[in-house]
Each structure stands twice: as structure tokens, then as C-alpha cells.
């Protein structure tokens, strides 16, 4: 493409909304939050420089944040793999020619469509309550359960993981699209060579889906780290019982907007940025070992 002066101007006119928004709502805030993270700042008075004190406090004094890290990592490391495993399994199940496919697809997708809403979080809270659907079902099949799954420190986080896994539908749709793109003759050739179904899955399906798995893994990990609404609603903004649902975003919100410790919350935000960044790099670097890119051919 030959570049002309006009094109430079026209190009910047067209991307101006992005460039402006990027500077105002992304770049400036990133550096402002880095600056705040070295200050004591309550919004009412201007920020006061305190050096690394916020970071020291995070790692030396704040017991809650250690708990919050533990809870968040448990949540991310259990919900993301489970969600992807469900998404892929059900996608495999639905990858056949049947007229009912549209209905099935909708039924599995619907939860992920509404799952992020406050309404569903409220619903979840009641389903796992002491007189909720789960206990009612357990009693029906003869198990005498009266525990409040939300109020019990051993199971509270599990209900959040379950809520996340329940929303596997959008990943399932992405996997379904990927499965449709695998040429049928690959499978036929493998069958001729005597490969059985599990072997065809491991040798053909899985390798060809790895780029999609990688994409899903990264996006889902980042969004799992940011989970806020269900933890807030289910624990009524407290993160309890015994801080078992105090996901990092919820703790950060409480520090910033309940206690107005903007400096400390900014330091937390930066630590999160670093962790998510490192994790993304780690996934990308490991991907050269397990992601299979089809060569485009000459």
C-alpha cells in the first residue's frame, strides 16, 4: 500500500476516538494508579508520598490480603480448568448432525448469557441457602442436609466456583465452531488407519483445538481474576464467612470505596496487574510446547 499524506490525516481522524479514550481512560489512569500506590490518599486530602509503605503493609502486616490471595487463586485455578473441561466435553457431545442442536445449544448457552447478572447471583444465594433448592433436593433423595452452603466456610467458595462452571456456554460455542472447522477426512483417514475414538480425540481433535484452548485459557483466567459481582452479592459485600469469598476484586473494592484507602487499593491493583501479566506471559511461553499451529502450506 502506498502511503499518502492524506491517508495519515484520514487514518488519525478515524482512530481518534480510540486514541483519545486510550490516553484518557487507560494510559493516564495506569500511571496515576502507580503514583497513588506510593501515597496515603483518602480522597478528602491530597495524596501524601509514603514511598513503599503500602507495599510493605500488603506483604508484612495485612493478614486479610494473604487470605484474599489464597481464596482468589483457589477460585481461578479450580473454576477455569473445570469450565473449559465442561465446555469442551459438551461441545464434543453437541458436535453431531441433529435437528435438535439449536435447542440444546441454547439451553447450554443461556446460563452464560445471564450468569453475570445480579439476578442470577441472588438466585444462586437462595439455591444454596439452608432451605434452598440444593438441600431440598438432597432431602428428596434421602440425604438429611440442612447446611447453609453460603454461610459455611468450607463450602462458600465452592458455590462461587459452581456458579462460574455453570456458565461454560460461551466457551462451548467457541469450541463448537472450532470442531466444525476440523476437516472430516482427517477422521476418516485415522479410522482407516485403525485409530479408535479416544485415540482420534487425542491425536486429531485436541491438537487442532489447542489454539482455541489457549485463547480461552487466557481470557477466562483474566476474567476469573476480576470476578466481583457474585462474590459481592452472595456475601452481601463482606466477603464472608471467615473471608472465604473475599475475592481480590472485592477486597480491593472494599479498601477503595468502603475504607477510602485509595493509595493502598492502588498498590493492590498494581500487584494484580503484575500477577495477571506474569500469568499471561507464562501461559503464552508454555504454549509453544502444547499449542499446535497448522502450517498454512505453500
Amino acid at each position: 500500500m502506498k502511503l499518502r499524506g492524506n491517508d495519515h490525516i484520514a487514518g488519525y481522524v478515524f482512530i481518534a476516538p480510540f486514541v483519545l479514550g486510550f490516553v484518557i481512560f487507560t494510559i493516564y489512569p495506569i500511571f496515576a494508579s502507580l503514583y497513588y500506590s506510593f501515597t496515603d490518599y483518602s480522597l478528602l486530602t491530597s495524596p501524601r508520598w509514603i514511598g513503599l509503605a503500602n507495599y510493605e503493609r500488603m506483604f508484612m502486616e495485612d493478614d486479610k490480603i494473604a487470605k484474599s490471595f489464597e481464596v482468589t487463586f483457589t477460585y481461578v485455578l479450580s473454576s477455569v480448568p473445570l469450565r473449559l473441561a465442561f465446555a469442551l466435553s459438551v461441545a464434543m457431545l453437541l458436535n453431531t448432525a441433529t435437528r435438535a442442536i439449536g435447542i440444546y445449544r441454547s439451553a447450554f448457552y443461556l446460563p452464560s448469557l445471564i450468569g453475570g447478572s445480579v439476578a442470577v447471583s441472588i438466585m444462586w444465594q437462595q439455591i444454596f441457602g439452608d432451605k434452598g433448592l440444593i438441600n431440598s433436593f438432597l432431602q428428596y433423595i434421602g440425604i438429611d442436609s440442612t447446611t447453609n452452603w453460603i454461610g459455611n466456610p468450607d463450602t462458600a467458595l465452592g458455590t462461587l466456583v459452581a456458579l462460574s462452571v455453570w456458565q461454560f456456554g460461551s466457551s462451548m460455542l467457541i469450541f463448537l465452531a472450532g470442531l466444525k472447522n476440523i476437516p472430516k477426512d482427517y477422521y476418516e483417514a485415522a479410522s482407516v488407519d485403525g485409530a479408535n475414538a479416544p485415540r482420534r480425540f487425542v491425536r486429531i481433535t485436541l491438537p487442532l483445538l489447542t489454539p482455541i484452548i489457549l485463547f480461552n485459557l487466557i481470557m477466562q483466567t483474566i476474567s476469573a481474576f476480576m470476578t466481583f459481582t457474585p462474590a459481592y452479592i452472595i456475601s452481601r459485600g463482606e466477603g464472608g464467612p471467615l473471608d472465604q469469598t473475599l475475592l481480590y476484586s472485592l477486597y480491593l473494592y472494599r479498601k477503595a470505596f468502603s475504607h477510602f484507602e485509595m493509595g493502598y487499593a492502588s498498590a493492590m491493583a498494581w500487584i494484580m496487574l503484575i500477577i495477571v501479566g506474569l500469568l499471561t506471559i507464562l501461559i503464552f511461553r508454555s504454549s509453544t510446547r502444547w499449542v499446535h499451529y497448522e502450517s498454512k502450506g505453500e
Partner: protein
Amino acid sequence: MSRALNKRTIYHVAVSVLALLMMYPILWLVSSSLKPNHEIFTTAFNLIPSALAFENYSSGWRGFAGTTFATFFKNSFVIVILSTIGAVASSAVVAYGFARIGFFARGFWFACMMATMMLPHDVVVIPQYVMFAEFGWISSLKPIILPHYFATPFFVFLIMQFIRTIPRELDEAAKIDGCSKYGIFVRVIVPLIVPALITSAIFSFYWRWDDFLNPLIYLNKPESYPVSLALKMFLDGESLNNWGGMFAMATLSLVPVVAVFFVFQRYIVEGISTSGLKG
């Protein structure tokens, strides 16, 4: 023949049971919204109410301290519609710039855009709050709506993919007819990318409708609450025992989302499958 038929039956039964299991919580929510208050938790497993308690809907609709759900729904629609118009229009403009015009440092800006897709929102939320507080915008809808007028990376990417499928010959022909870049965008590109714009609008609708954190941070008067924030009030304090009303309004808040899904299903499935948008 009959063995194949059996296998098909088993398949359909198994998948249907699984699908029903997935839908069960939602069906439970709807059924609870129609149960008399005393029945909701005594017969939780039973999906069929003994009598239809439509009064849950009227008692829920009454809302809190004189503010009804008519106001909350109106606020939600104002936020969703204004944000969506801004997000889709600005994203289309930016997408055309990236997809069709070669300009200085295009690759750099494109990389910046892709990077913001992966940026945790928590990092920018505090400085944005401070900034909007300085503007005096706290407790107005501006901080919730305005940022969407500066293009949404996901939508830009989705629309770009779509523009790439339009033959460049169309642009060339329009240019020979005397169209400028701006003319080509308005007359040639926009009419052809309508499906991508609809897909973007649908996702914008979902995300804005469900948004909870931004209203929670910026709004402090119930008169300006959207539905998502209003639902939370059922869990606060004195109204704690109106379960029926809470379930009724929770159900009602999902109606627009589910309705849009059934009307625009095709766009949604295509949108997710081609770009990896999260629903």
C-alpha cells in the same frame, strides 16, 4: 437399524437431561417468583406453585421508599441505549480506520488496542473515579455512559474482521466516482457492516444491562439506580423478607436479556464463534 435408533434415543435422552439440569436453576427462579411467600422455601424442590401469586410482581414492582421499578428499568434502558449507541458508532469508525487506511504507526496503535482488551479493569478504576470526582460527575450517569463513546476494542476487532471480507474493489470504484475516505465509509462500508454492528450492539446491551460495579461506585441516590443495583436493595435491611418480590423482580430483570437472545440468536452465535466474544 434398531440399534442405531436406540443409540440416537439414548443420546437425546442424555443430552436433554443434561440440558434440563442446566436450566433447572432458572426454572426454579421463575417458579419461585410465582409462589406465595410462605411456600418458596417449604417446597423448594417443587417447581409448580400451589397457586399463582402474581402479587409478588406488584409488591416487588413497588420498589423501595417511593422509587418503583418503573424508574429502575427506565434508568437501565437510558444507560444501555446511550452507551450502546456510543460504543457501536465509535467502534465502527475506528475499525474502518484500522482496516482500510494505511497511516503512520498503525501497527503500534493496533497493538495498544489489543493490549487494553487484556488489561484488568481494577487498575484503572480508582484514577477514573478520582478524575470523575474532580469533574463533579459523581452520582450522575455521565461516568457510566461517557467512556463508551471512545470505542470498545472487542467491537473494533469484530467489525474489522467483517470489513476485511468486503472486496476492496468496492472502495476503489467509489473512489473513482469521487468519494473521499469519509464518503466511502458512510456510503459503502456502513451499509455493508450492519450485521457486525448488530452483533456489537447486542453484546453491548448485555454487558451494560448486567453492569453492577460502575453503578455501585458512581451512583448513590436510588432514583438513579439501574435494575442491577436496585435488586441488591432487596438484600439490604428492612425489605429482607419480601422473597417473592425479590424473585419476581430478578426474573423480570432477565426478560430483556432472554428476549434479545431469542430474537437475535443467529448474530450472537456467529459473534461468539468468529471472535471469541464472551457472552
